[in-house]
């Protein structure tokens, strides 16, 4: 039995896998068991590889699920995952044996609940509003009649048909359609690219540059319209130099592009109505303007004709205009010959009056009168001269009579008396003055004598001199050959041998000496 009973090595009867085998088994199990699942969580870090694949995490408060979406799948996503977004991802689990990791391949991302999406939209709205992209001043007016209209929408579907239909009804125009995806993740970049692309066209280039853009999409769920809530779309609309009408969804749907576009239309059809006026209305209007011009011009001429006629009626008739003057002419011409004759007669009468007085007697009388006057005046001439001479002579004599030496002498005597008086007063003044001066000199002299050294001599002092020079010290006196001593009553010469050593007391003090 013991032979029968093997003592097998532990685990010998368990199948043994290679690493690749077990990796494959795990992968198969995962993919089989979790072939199509939905996972709810919050998007974590998002990384787009250069290859175009998208790697991101979906997490809850404890665990993380690595997710991948391949490049080819991205376009079909309705929402591109964004960090912090609450989502429900749909796909299958798979394993990556090379790193012993499992992950989820996501084919569809849905925002978990409208609340989360709306919160995201509100956040974006606030950010763009803060940048001023919604400002009224940014909005450009739409052209009255655009030549070319650029439409950014899906080339197939009801939307473009509605727009073209309404345009044709109102005013057929040139329309350029830029085909774009209107949902999924491709939507936002394609729409932004279309708006920028239309703006990049040069006016008059191979492709005509539109005067007006319409960005349109039909109604749909919030997720369907989500592309038009993307920031790149809103920014492209704000940056568009061409006026832009946004018409996304139904009237009740408002997307981010509606805030940055120049005009928001509730529906694509309404966008077409905003884009062009009604041609027939304009034709009628033009026709009526033409009619008014014709009427106005006709009325203008008629009014002037009427006025002309009225004025013409007001003009007086030409015959009545002339009759008055003509009558005056008749009267004047009637009176003309008689007036001429009367004028001549009148002048003749005046001539005869004047010539009557023109006789030689008149002239002779005039001469006689003048002669008499001349004689009268010449008679007065010589007495007048004599009278003049006499008057002057009298004046002369009168004056010379007054010119007498006696008069002068009296004056001289008068002046001499005054001179004598004055010289007496002068000499008296001089004497008095001299007396006064003398008195003052004597007073000074007395004062001088009091103050002089000679008065001091009388009090017993002497002045010692040697050859006229003052000797003030004992030393000088000892060396002198001969001393002259001045007393009050005279001078005495003293030899050095003849006298004892001089006493300083006898010598005047330096103070006294300085008096000299």
């Amino acid at each position: 039995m013991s032979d029968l009973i093997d003592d097998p090595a532990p685990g010998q009867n368990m199948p043994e896998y290679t690493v690749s085998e077990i990796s494959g088994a795990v992968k198969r199990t995962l993919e089989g068991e979790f072939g199509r699942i939905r996972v709810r969580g919050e998007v974590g870090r998002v990384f787009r590889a250069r290859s175009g694949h998208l790697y991101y995490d979906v997490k809850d408060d404890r665990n993380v699920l690595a997710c991948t979406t391949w490049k080819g799948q991205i376009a079909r996503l309705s929402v591109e995952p964004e960090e912090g977004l609450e989502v429900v991802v749909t796909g299958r689990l798979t394993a990556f044996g090379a790193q012993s990791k499992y992950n989820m391949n996501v084919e569809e991302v849905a925002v978990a609940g409208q609340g989360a999406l709306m919160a995201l939209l509100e956040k974006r709205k606030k950010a763009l509003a803060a940048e001023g992209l919604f400002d009224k001043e940014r909005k450009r007016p739409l052209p009255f009649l655009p030549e070319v209209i650029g439409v950014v929408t899906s080339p197939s579907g009801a939307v473009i048909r509605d727009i073209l239909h309404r345009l044709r009804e109102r005013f057929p125009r040139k329309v350029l359609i830029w085909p774009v995806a209107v949902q999924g993740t491709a939507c936002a970049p394609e729409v932004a690219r279309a708006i920028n692309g239309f703006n990049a066209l040069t006016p008059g280039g191979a492709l005509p540059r539109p005067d007006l853009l319409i960005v349109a999409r039909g109604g749909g769920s919030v997720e369907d319209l989500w592309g038009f809530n993307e920031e790149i779309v809103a920014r492209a609309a704000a940056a568009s130099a061409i006026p832009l009408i946004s018409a996304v969804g139904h009237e009740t749907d408002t997307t981010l592009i509606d805030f940055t576009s120049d005009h928001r239309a509730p529906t694509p059809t309404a966008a077409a109505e905003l884009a062009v006026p009604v041609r027939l209305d304009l034709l009628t209007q033009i026709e009526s303007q033409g009619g008014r011009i014709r009427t106005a011009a006709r009325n203008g001429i008629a009014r002037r004709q009427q006025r002309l006629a009225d004025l013409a009626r007001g003009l007086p008739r030409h015959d009545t205009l002339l009759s008055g003057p003509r009558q005056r002419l008749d009267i004047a011409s009637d009176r003309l010959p008689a007036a001429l004759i009367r004028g001549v007669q009148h002048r003749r009468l005046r001539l005869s009056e004047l010539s009557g007085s023109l006789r030689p007697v008149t002239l002779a009388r005039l001469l006689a009168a003048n002669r008499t006057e001349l004689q009268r005046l010449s008679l007065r001439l010589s007495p007048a001269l004599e009278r003049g001479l006499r008057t002057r002579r009298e004046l002369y004599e009168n004056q010379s009579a007054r010119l007498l030496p006696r008069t002068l002498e009296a004056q001289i005597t008068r002046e001499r008396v005054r001179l004598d008086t004055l010289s007496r007063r002068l000499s008296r003044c001089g004497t008095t003055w001299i007396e006064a001066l003398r008195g003052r000199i004597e007073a000074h002299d007395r004062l001088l004598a009091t103050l002089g050294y000679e008065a001091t001599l009388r009090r017993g002092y002497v002045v010692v001199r040697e050859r006229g020079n003052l000797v003030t010290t004992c030393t000088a006196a000892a060396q002198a050959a001969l001393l002259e001593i001045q007393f009050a009553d005279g001078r005495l010469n003293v030899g050095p041998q003849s006298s004892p050593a001089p006493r300083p007391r006898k010598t005047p003090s330096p103070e006294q000496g300085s008096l000299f």
Partner: protein
Amino acid sequence: MSDTPVEKLSFEEAMKELESVVNQLDHGDVALDRSIALYERGAALKKRCEDELKRAEEKVAAITLDNDGNPTGTAPVEGN
């Protein structure tokens, strides 16, 4: 009344000027020779606007794009 040739005016400018011409003529206080000039200008403006309205043609084309999404040309759109 501007001196710009009517061909140089946009439809909207031509419309506006036509209205102003009509108003001036309607008021009737312009001199005769000027009113004649205004009438002629008005007639030219009206013709310009009418031509523009009659010229209204529809032409719809879709832009064709290359692989990078750049426009390459247009293709006529049919069936609308």
